Structure formats: C-alpha cells, structure tokens
C-alpha cells in the first residue's frame, strides 16, 4: 500500500492535482465574495470546457497513437454550417445531427487516407483537410452567409439543462471523456493505441493492425469535432465560419500539459481533463478578478511554463539514482 502511495506522489496525476488545488485555493481566497467555488461559477468553468473536452478526447488519442490532428476545429465549423443548412431545409434534428456527425467521421477517414495511403505528414494533411477543405465546403454551401439555428432540440443541446440544473452539453462532454478514458485505460482497443504509438513496426510484427487503428481514430476525432460544432451552434444560435476553429490548439496544449506527449505512447484522459480544468479554472479566476483578456494570455502562458517546469523537476527526481536491489 505504501509503495502504491509513494508511486502516486511521483506521478504526473499528482502534480496536476496539486496544481489544481493551488489554483482553486488561490482564486477562492482572492475572488470577490469567494465566488470562485460558487455553483454558478463552477458551472461556468465546466461550460467553457465543453468544446475543449471534445477536441481533447479525439486529438489526445491520436497523439498517443503517434499522429496529430489539427482539423477538428474546422470540422466543427463545417458541422455547424451543415447542421444549420439541414435544419433550415426542414430536416428533423436527429437526422441532421446524425448526418453531420457522420460527415465529420468522413472527414476523419479522409485524413487517415492522406496519412496512410499518400503518406502525407499528419500535421500538413489535417491542416489542409480542415482549414481548406472543410471550411471551404462550408463557405460554398452557404455562399458566405451566416446561418441562424432555431431548431429547439439543437438549441436545447447547446444551452438546455437536465433536471437538477446541469447543462446538457456538460453532461455530454463529461460522459464522453469518462467513456473514452475507460476505453483507453482498460480495453484492448485502448491498449492497442498505446502499443502502436510506442512502436508501430513492433506492433505490426506482433500481430496488431495499426492501419485499421489509424482510420478508426481519425474518424472518431472527426465525429467528435462535428459533435462539438453542433453543440457550439446550438449554444450560439448561429453558425459562422470561425466558430470552433480556434479551439483545437488550446485543447491539444491542455492534453500535453496533462501528460500526453508527442513521442507517442503515454498519457491519458484523466490527465487531459485535469489539464483542461486547470487552464480553464485559471482563466475563469482571472476574469473574476477583473483581469483583461490580454493579461489573461500572459498569465496563462506563465502558468503553462510553471506547470511544465514542475513536471520537469518531478521527472528528474524520478530518475534520481536509487541503490539497486541485488538478486
């Protein structure tokens, strides 16, 4: 038991929890009327995390498996436009939503095709698919015009609450990150992601199918990106050409803060979640203190550097020489 505890102390998760506690305590103390931990504010924090969570899930898994995907934000933009157009043409919400998410998955498959068959670097391929193709098609569909979203169900998904007061969107994103977290940690599929990310050749030689995995993961990311786009439009009541496009990078940053490394093969959903929680709590806290968004950027940057430094120190301590056990 003691060994488990001491190992936990040295783990990345512990570092993140400590950081989170520091941030929470600091803002709870300094925020006017200790409003930081009020139910309303906590809801605000989680609300601001919804889109990021959806992006972090898919992109996180892809990074673990050794790829990067910069397209989900743009696929979200496309999804907002697509669902808006379909709804505008009288198609029922459930068909519109399903078709849109399927379209997102198709974009994902296309990404996988570029990477697997044409052997284009994932960074470039997904950027192209996203910012040129997805966004481009969106513009063509609407001829450059912004769409209004009025369908009550879609709007409810974006802004509505479940009995008890918890926003639907938060529930959806939390459920998804928990589900994928479990899949990643405890199923064969999840293990395969780590193995292929660790060494794709060895994985292939041991009978795994990295190729199939790539297609599945990109498709999932595309679908999640589309879902995020639908939720965003429902929330904003319009679909335009920027909507979710700037959410991808911060999501990936938070995932890396949470322990997913570009080397592939490490990290998990819990880390992602904690990373996002820390960053969003921090920004929220600053807002409560009246700090302008410009200074928020600076502070966020500093926080990120502090977190990474803390991480470096704890890794270095982990590597400190211990007297070996003699057999």
């Amino acid at each position, binding site marked *: 038991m003691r060994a488990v505890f001491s190992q936990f102390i040295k783990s990345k998760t512990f570092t993140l929890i400590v950081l989170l506690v520091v941030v929470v305590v600091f803002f709870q103390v300094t925020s006017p009327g200790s409003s930081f931990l009020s139910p309303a504010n906590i809801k605000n924090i989680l609300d601001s995390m919804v889109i990021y969570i959806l992006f972090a899930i898919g992109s996180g898994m892809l990074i673990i498996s050794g790829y990067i995907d910069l397209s989900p934000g743009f696929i979200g933009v496309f999804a907002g436009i697509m669902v808006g157009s379909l709804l505008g043409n009288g198609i029922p919400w459930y068909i519109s939503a399903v078709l849109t998410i399927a379209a997102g998955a198709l974009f994902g498959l296309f990404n996988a095709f570029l990477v697997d068959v044409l052997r284009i670097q994932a960074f470039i391929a997904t950027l192209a698919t996203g910012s040129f193709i997805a966004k481009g098609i969106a513009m063509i569909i609407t001829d450059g015009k912004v769409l209004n979203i009025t369908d009550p169900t879609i709007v409810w998904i974006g802004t509505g609450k479940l009995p008890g007061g918890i926003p639907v969107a938060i529930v959806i994103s939390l459920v998804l990150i928990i589900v994928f977290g479990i899949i990643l940690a*405890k*199923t*064969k599929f999840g*293990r*395969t992601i*780590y*193995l292929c990310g*660790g*060494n794709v*050749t*060895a*994985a*292939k*030689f*041991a*009978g*795994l*199918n990295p190729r199939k995995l790539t297609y599945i993961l990109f498709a999932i990311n595309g679908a999640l990106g589309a879902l995020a786009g639908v939720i965003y439009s429902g929330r904003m009541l319009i679909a335009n050409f920027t909507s979710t496009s700037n959410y991808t990078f911060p999501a990936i940053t938070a995932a890396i803060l949470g322990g997913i490394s570009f080397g592939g*093969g*490490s990290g998990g959903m819990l880390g992602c979640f904690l990373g996002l929680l820390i960053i969003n709590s921090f920004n929220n806290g600053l807002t409560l203190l009246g700090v302008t968004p410009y200074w928020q950027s600076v502070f966020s940057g500093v926080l990120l550097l502090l977190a990474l430094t803390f991480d470096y120190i704890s890794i270095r301590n982990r*590597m400190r*020489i*211990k*007297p*070996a*056990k*003699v*057999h």
Partner: protein
Amino acid sequence: MGQVLEFVNIYKAFPGVQALQDVSFRADGGKVTALMGENGAGKSTLLKILSGDLRPDRGHVSFNGEVKHFMSPHQSLNSGISVIYQERQLINSMNVMENIFLEDMPGNKLGIINRSELKRRTQEIIDAFGLPIRPTDIVGNLSVAHQQMVEIMKAYRRDSAVIAFDEPTAPLTDKEITILFKLIRQLREQGRIILYVSHRIAEIFQITDEIVVLKDGRLVRTFNTPETTERELVRAMVGRDIGDTYANLKRNDKIGEALLEVKNLVTDYVHDVSFTLRRGEILGFAGLIGAGRTEVARAIFGVDPVHSGEIKLEGETVRFKSPRDAIARGIMLCPEDRKEQGLILQRSIRDNVTMPVLSQLRKGIFLDRKSETALAKEAVRKYSIRTPSVEMQVMQLSGGNQQKTILGRWTSEKIETKILILDEPTKGIDVGTKAEVYQMICDFAKQGIGVIFISSELTEVLNVSDNIIVMHNGHITGRVSRAEATEENVLEMAMRI
C-alpha cells in the same frame, strides 16, 4: 614510457540497476588489457566513464598517479584518452585528413587551414602504420575496416597514451582483423595503454596480455592471458561451467512430416527459393550479411509482398498479406532488430508479452490485468528473465533478457506456435545466455515446432541446426545436414556467386 591507468573503487548506478560496484584495477603501458564479461557486466559503463561520457557516483580514474575527474569527453580527450566505439565517430562527408586533424588543423594565425601541411602530416601517420589509405579519401566511402583505422590514426595523432577498443572486430573480415591486430601491436610497442573489450575469446588469446573479468558490475578476477584457458574465462564470466555448449545440448530426435513447403519463392529480394521445413526440425539459414535470409523470413511472415512462388503450410497453400495473417496460422517471427522491430521499449515486459493475445485476456470488454500478469510471470519464470517485476520497462533489460521477452511472447499457453522464425537471436548476447537460448531452441523442436534459425555466426548455426541452408545474394547456394557441414564448406557456399 611506464604509464599507468587506474580505476579506483568505481561505483555507478542507473535507475534500477547497480552497473558498477567497487571496481578497481590497473592497466599498464606497453600491454593490451582485455575487459571481458557478459552483457550487463559493466564493460560499456566503464568505458563511458573513461571517455568522460559518464561520471562515477563514487571512485575515480587516475592516470600516472594523477586523479582525473572527467566532466566531459573533451577533458578525457585532452588527458590523452581515446575510446574507439563500435559505432563510428567520424564525419562521413569529410576526408581522412580532415577527420584525423579535426580538432587541431594546422593553420596560420588568421585561422586559415594549411592544406598542404595537413596532407603531409596525415601521410606521415598513414605511412607510420603502412595503411592503404589516402589522405584525400572521403571517409564515407571507405570500408568499415578502413574507417576504423582512421579512428586509430586519430588517436595516434592525439598521441593518446590510452586507447580503448570496444568490440572492434565485429564488422571486420579475417584479413582486416590481422591488419588491426598488427596496428594494435604497434601501438603497444609504443608503450601506450591499450584496453580491449570483446566477446570473442579466440581474439582475446591472440592479442591481449592481461584479462579483467567483470560480472554483474563487480570485478571477478584478473588473468594473465598466457596462463589461462577459455574454459576458465567463461567460468569466471558466467559463474558456472559451460562445458562444451553444443555437446551438452539435449536435442530433438523426432523429426516429423513436412510442415512448411516453400516453392520457387520470388520477392524483391530473393530469387527462386525453395525448401521444406519439417515438424521438430531446426533448419538453419547460414550466409553472410545481406544474403537474403531475413528477406525470406519476411516473405513467409507476410511483411514483404511475394511476386511468385508458393508457400504451403501443412499441405495448404497460404498467402499472407500481413504479419497478423501469419500469426493467426501459427507462424511467429523474432526479428533481427529486436529493439526497433521486436519490442516496444518504453512499455513493460507484461505489455510486450501479451501483445498478440490481448483478445484472450479479457473479462467482458475489459482487459484482465490479473491474467495478463500471470501470463507475463509465466514467461519470466520459463525463460529465467532477470527482472524484479513484470512491470519493468523492457528498455531496462539486457539484450539477452529482451530476446527472452520476445520468445516469451510467442510461446505462452494462449498462443499456438507451429513455426518459430528466429533471426539472429543471439546477437549481442553473452556466452551464458547464448547457451540457454540454444537449449531453448532444441526444446522448441522437441515440442514439434519447426524452427528456422537464421544466424551469421557460423559456429552456432552449424552446431545447433539439424539441417542448414546456405544463401548468397538472394539465392540458395547450398544445403547440408549438420553431419556434413563444416565451417569451410559452408563458408564457401556462402560466398559463391
């Protein structure tokens, strides 16, 4: 010159392993001192401390009575120490003279290089050793042997009093080894301190004067080369008597019917290869590096596309599009490059062992940690893999234990192996573990598994296999049984065009 190099009470530890423990010995000038020991005994660590790449936790190196704490390779070089590693440390795009004088080009006060002086002084060194190399030869175009000589000349130019060699003969032909030894003897006559790390016992007896044996990070014994025997050395390295490794093998005497029939196989790399592997047979594949043996394995295993020809498994024609297909039919491969292709280094032994059978280690849709651990523990026990736990990252294991992990993967109870292809399974593995691996191969054969044993080490492939196929340049150039095979006739077939 009467120089002395001393290692005094050296301790060095890495996460999870004490690499060196209280190692002390001296090496004198005018002698070649060998450093021997199993993989993981501490030889490389000692060399790295000497060259300044690592610093000892405790203890020090002393040269001619002066204590030296090398904070960097630079300091080690300046103190007159040159270590010549297995990997070349030369700049391939530059020529011989530029490499030899890299840190010390003759030039004027403005820093402009005096090329004619550079050439002249390089030629002096080349002549001192009598080598067939020109100062203007581009290093990248030289053979490995000649590149090695350039490194020696570098050490000579630095007038290094201490020159250490780490497994220098691995890439060399017999003729080149003779030249290398001539050079080493010259360096020795010059009074320099020569350290020689090698696994090759025959060479140790040829070229060294003293032998230091390490085991598990400790110094076991030092020997005077002329006064010891191979058997005694091996016993010191391994801690037990190996005896005659091959004579003691418990072989399989029941070879069954045809298991794998390969007919006229053609891929990008092999031409018209045909052979039969029978149940319980150990079929050796001998040949020089590049002969095409690994490529035959890759074709059978579904890695390389087959252009024409037929492969029949248990009488049924098969066509594998991926390793997954081959594994499903019971054909397993231990690849030549075990680190790049065989293992996921940052994952645990458990992860690496359970990879192909994850579907069978589940409880519902979740992976069953307990069965995974049990499977891994069984592999560790079966192959005597030395590790404190199955959660240890395989990158921390020695080469021999890494190889055993891969074998464990293919022979667990959850998997049915019909054919095991071993490509250079004993590469970089010490004497003691090699003997274990040979017996394991015979044990596989006894279980009725057909073993394809690819090895560039002639002795082992001749003595362990039941039958041997010799390849050269993608073709089969000979087939012999163990009884008929001799190193001479096999080598001849391996070199035939």
